[in-house]
């Protein structure tokens, strides 16, 4: 059975800081837009004009990951997104509602489907291989990762691009504030929201610049006993909580999440715990940033203090990523030092 390595990472997030070893500041806004790169460095200007933000972010981040891994065309493209191309969806829907279904043009409809980013990446790279898009809230990215991992482990493919993309859009933000998902005057304890794109070049071949090995991924919509679930997952992978050097948790400490986070934290007492959602915000594929953070930490053996929730930074051979939101969409990702 082949191993699955992370050989390239591309990140666009709410803070313009490339390495998690640099200093970040804690987010304060209810909604935090991504700091967008100079797209024309990697995308032709005539294409940029027609692309929505999610597509631009996705293409840019994916190209950075592929470049780093030295892959021209991957064998498969697998993306995850919670809300998909919400900006174009809104635009097309407003056109329908505001003008009584008249004077519509197809562009925003064409770009509104959830698979637009994956499709545009494939089109641009002329990648005719496997192409999937997962749209399942907080485990959208982890399912993309699990899918890629399964194919590499089974020797079906050699190089797979996986990523998570989510963009914010005005009307949807307002609705999610009414629904108390995003912080506002109505609910001061709801999440600080954001957007971003995080892509990874997975490969069956270890390279000089390999970050880490993805050992296993598990997803569960609801978990009654987190301790047993985590222990069994680690045991299945011939390891244990005591052998895990650090835990990277998607902690979004909104009121509804406190109890779920508490029971997870109780499993990892006295462990080094890193967190990131206070720095890059909450969105359905925010946990993909956590994978980048964990991979960078394993490679550089250090991260900035901003990420440390508890414990200290030191030698690191195994990292466990944990994520959930509203007590749903639990996921675990086990990383090992590449060797």
């Amino acid at each position, binding site marked *: 059975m082949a191993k699955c390595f992370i050989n390239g990472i591309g990140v666009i997030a709410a803070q313009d800081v490339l390495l998690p070893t640099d200093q970040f500041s804690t987010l304060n806004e209810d909604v935090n837009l991504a700091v967008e790169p100079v797209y024309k460095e990697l995308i032709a200007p005539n294409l940029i004009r027609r692309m929505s933000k999610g597509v631009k972010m996705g293409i840019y981040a994916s190209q950075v990951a592929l470049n780093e891994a030295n892959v021209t065309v991957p064998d498969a*493209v697998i993306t995850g997104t919670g809300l998909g191309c919400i900006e174009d969806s809104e635009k097309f829907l407003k056109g329908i509602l505001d003008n009584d279904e008249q004077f*519509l043009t197809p562009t925003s409809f064409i770009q509104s489907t959830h*698979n637009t980013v994956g*499709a545009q990446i494939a*089109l641009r790279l002329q*990648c005719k291989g*496997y192409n999937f898009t997962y749209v399942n809230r907080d485990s959208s990215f982890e399912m993309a990762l699990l899918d890629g991992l399964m194919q590499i482990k089974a020797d079906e493919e050699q190089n797979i691009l996986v990523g998570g993309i989510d963009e914010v859009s005005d009307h949807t933000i307002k609705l999610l504030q009414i629904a108390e998902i995003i912080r506002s005057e109505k609910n001061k304890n709801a999440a600080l929201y954001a957007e971003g794109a995080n892509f990874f070049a997975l490969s069956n071949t270890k390279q000089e610049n390999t970050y880490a090995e993805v050992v296993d991924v598990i997803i569960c919509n609801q978990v009654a006993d987190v301790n047993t679930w985590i222990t069994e997952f680690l045991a299945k992978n011939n390891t244990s909580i005591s052998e895990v050097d650090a835990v990277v948790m998607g902690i979004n400490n909104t009121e509804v999440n406190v109890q779920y986070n508490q029971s997870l934290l109780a499993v990892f007492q006295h462990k080094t715990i890193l967190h990131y959602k206070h720095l890059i915000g909450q969105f359905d594929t925010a946990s993909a940033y956590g994978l980048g953070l964990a991979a960078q930490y394993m490679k550089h053996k250090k991260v900035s203090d901003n990420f440390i929730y508890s414990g200290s930074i030191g030698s690191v051979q195994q990292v466990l990523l944990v994520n959930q939101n509203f007590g749903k969409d639990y996921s675990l990702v086990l990383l090992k030092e590449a060797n």
Partner: protein
Amino acid sequence: MSKRVAITGMGIVSAIGNSVAENFDSLKNGKIGIGKISLFETRHQNEILVGEVKMSNVELENSLHLPHSHNYTRTALLGAFAVKQALQQANITDCNDKKTAFISSTSVGGMDFTEKYFYEYFENTEIERFITSHDAGHASHEIAELIGLEGLVTTISTACSSAANAIMLGARLIKSGRAERVIVGGTDALSKFTINGFKTLMILSDTYNTPFDDNRKGLNLGEAAAYLVLEAEEVALAAGKNILAYVAGYGNANDAFHQTASSENGDGAYLAMEKALKVAQILPEAVDYINAHGTATPNNDLSEGRALIRAFGDKVPAFSSTKAFTGHTLAAAAAIEAVYSVLAIQNQCIYPNLNFKTPMQEFHLIPETKFVSAPIKTVLSNSFGFGGNCSTIIFTK
């Protein structure tokens, strides 16, 4: 990866029936489900025909015994209705007695309610709970909760090929040992959003759709949900289950040609079929019937036809598109057609490609136009979507 993937249950609700038996009866007796739209007001009322499920939201709610405070949109209601049938046929009362996953798919998610309440949400607190039913994952989460499933739940959205990919992922989870049983399928309700979207692309027909006909004018949109219960063969046999058919092969490829149009020679479609045949370890001549994507748009049927000729040469098996019965049900299409494929194996028959009169000029492909009996061991089902997403599933006896 040697485990065989058995199908032990199916559930369906479409324009041609609210159960597997009703759907088969309609296919057998040429009863189509296409007509004028009645679900909601649209200014295109008289220019289009659609395939509506003949149950209202209230009827669906009642049959599911949902509490009054639920926030199911029609997409979730249709999905839950079909999932329950599938579990019943597979004789599953406890979803967690085996390692079970649920993989759903949708293209519009809760758009049918979002478009109704988009501005009203700001004024009416009564409907606030539907805000969080917009996203594609909502229906999957609600259905998982309804059937009490605690395990892997995920949702796929690759436009009109979505449910084929759900079936494919389900089969792969079983083969890799990550699940013993997977409920797979898709659900999509009709919405103004999709009707206007396809309208702007000028691929909606104002008549009954005519797949693979030279004078085809486009598609009729439809709504549906269908789910299949997949089980590792040894798990199904140990439980004494009746195996309806097997998922023997699957292939996924990207056409990488255009965001909405298919390539002239059907590269993606051809690659998907080729991969599926390889996974199933069968030669093209082993395929007895092809349930084509056949949307009746000028572009799809030409591209798919060319891909069929590339994959099967001058021996293209008997084929038909069932979309003249149901309309194009988007993310659910591959799921309802999976049910029809299994029924073709169970009943040893081929469905008519209705409304076909004139062969296409570009090639000599003539679909089956009558309901006929035939020995059917292997069925290949195609589904293609926006974004170049092409998928093929092969079902065997």
